[in-house]
């Protein structure tokens, strides 16, 4: 079999962008776990929410990319705020199973509520940028992909700065590393937890909004992606942010390469098999059970 090198480069670029967007989702999941010790099963629906917010905001703002994206991020952040205040804040520290059942219930309500309101039909989303792109020789990448990847990188850089430089971020890491000690130095766990949830859902909304012009938008899109995000946080080590990012980028590349040459079924199965394999060899994930580590 001969492989066209151009085709390979093209696949690599697409995979990189996809991986960065996966990473946004996985990082949020990991952050919530690190701070609240809760797995947010409704995380995928926040992605879907972000994508739909983008879809419906675009015509309102005359197809302008930036304001629609901003609105989408704010809407999902508000959703995260409600999620915390209405539900998660009522749970105790050892209510792990209850937290799952509640977020599952919410996920189903959001998914089917959306399906009922806007129908399950996939939508193609158009922006001011259309499907234009840059071409270098025969390699082509659309603006929406390029911007999506850039936004993700910018988000990681800001997240890193936030976690290491600001009191708000340091409190988050302190709680994740040692809850008792953090409480003793007067950190308010409730505020920190709320911030973590809002931040995570905003990141997820950003991913959804950036994905909207790249992929088809449909209610079920969150479910497809969350499954991968779960595998990623497990492979990267629960609560380990750099681990989740590394695993996500690797997965994006891997999927893009496999998807270019094999049937889709292998692409889906690969993640799960990889996860089982990692767990057999290293039960704490590839990068260890580290707490929210920023570096």
């Amino acid at each position, binding site marked *: 079999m001969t492989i066209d090198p151009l085709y390979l480069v093209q696949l690599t670029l697409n995979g990189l962008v996809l991986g960065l967007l996966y990473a946004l989702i996985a990082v949020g999941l990991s952050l919530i*776990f690190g701070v609240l*010790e809760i*797995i947010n*099963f409704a995380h995928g629906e926040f992605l879907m929410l972000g994508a739909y917010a983008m879809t419906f905001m675009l015509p309102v703002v005359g197809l302008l990319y930036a304001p629609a994206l901003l609105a989408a991020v704010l809407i999902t952040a508000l959703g995260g705020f409600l999620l915390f205040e209405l*539900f998660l804040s*009522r749970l105790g520290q050892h209510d*792990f*199973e*209850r937290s*799952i*059942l*509640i977020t*599952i*219930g*919410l*996920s*189903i*309500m959001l*998914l*089917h*509520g959306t*399906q*009922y309101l806007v129908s399950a039909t996939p939508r193609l989303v158009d922006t001011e940028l259309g499907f234009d792109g840059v071409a270098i020789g025969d390699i082509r990448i659309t603006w929406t992909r390029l911007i999506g990847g850039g936004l993700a990188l910018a988000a990681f850089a800001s997240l890193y700065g936030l976690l290491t430089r600001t009191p708000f971020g340091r409190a988050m890491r302190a709680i994740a590393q040692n809850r008792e000690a953090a409480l003793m130095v007067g950190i308010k766990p409730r505020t920190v937890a709320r911030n973590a949830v809002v931040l995570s859902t905003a990141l997820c909304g950003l991913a959804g909004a950036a994905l909207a012009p790249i992929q088809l938008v449909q209610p079920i899109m969150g*479910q497809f992606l969350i*499954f991968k995000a*779960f*595998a990623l*946080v*497990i492979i990267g080590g*629960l609560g380990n942010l750099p681990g989740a990012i590394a695993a996500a980028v690797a997965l994006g590349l891997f999927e893009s390469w496999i998807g270019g040459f094999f*049937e*889709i*079924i292998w692409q*889906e*199965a690969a993640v*799960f098999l990889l*996860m*089982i394999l990692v*767990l*057999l060899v290293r*039960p704490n994930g590839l990068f260890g059970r580290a707490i929210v580590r920023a570096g």
Partner: protein
Amino acid sequence: MRRFAGVGAAACAVGAAALLPTVTQSNYLIGIAVSACLFTVAAASLNLVYGYTGLLSFAQLAFWGIGGYCAALTVATFGGNFWQGLLLAAGLNGALALAVGYPALRLNRHAFVIVSLSFALLANLIARDWTELTRGPLGIPGLPAPTLFGFAFRGTATFYYLALTYAMLALGLLYAIASSQIGVTLRAIKQNEILAQSQGISGLGYKLLAFTVGAVLTAVAGGIFVFHLTIVDPLILDFYYMQTFLIMVIIGGAGSFWGVVVAGVLMSALPELLRFSADLRMVLYGAILVAAVLVMPDGVAGWLRRRRVERLRAALQ
């Protein structure tokens, strides 16, 4: 004494259930009763895994669906009969439970939940995408009625006896486990695994046992269910089923055998009463789940148990 009362009540219930087709001629009602039998087995299996052992396992959904596909494919593609299909469902899912359970149960419970969920989602994806085997989203329609020594379980009432017999066998086995020293040990592991380890009890072995028994019984129930529907398609792996089983366990009371059985039978009728749009029904189910978990985390049976403990404590003061 309570034991005998329970057995007596169970015998009456079985008697009443067996007489159902003589009371009503409605295929619609008897069809609900078929679902009630099979859903109750799945809920009671989940109760063994979650209620007794404390493992919140979404893999139950995968076992239910894979069981359905095993039974259907054996008849429609592999040239076997219904009973061989059930055997394949039991064997394959038992093996899968061991293969997935062994690595996943060694993890902390957080990771276990994620792995079990991913497994269920993967099963769903495979059912849709591996079209050569599963025929994709269209599924395999027209499954024939099972036959035994020339007798065909044709017609809803006849099929009902098949489902009822299986439900009795499966629930009997689950009851035998739950009421034996094994059931006590599973509850002990759920409550305090570290203490159990310090007493020489291997948590992993017992968890694998519960997980595997739950998988096999659920898979066979799924296998029978698709022959009741006469079609298998990826919808058999829809989250709707998992949610139904979960609600039955939570409302009935996780860790209470009879609570979950009663909830399973009663709540099987629920979807039939709520015959509006499928999406709205799911929204309502989600709301019930959230509300139940927030308001009544241990279900009706747990609420009754707590009242008993309160009384004892008061008597002791």
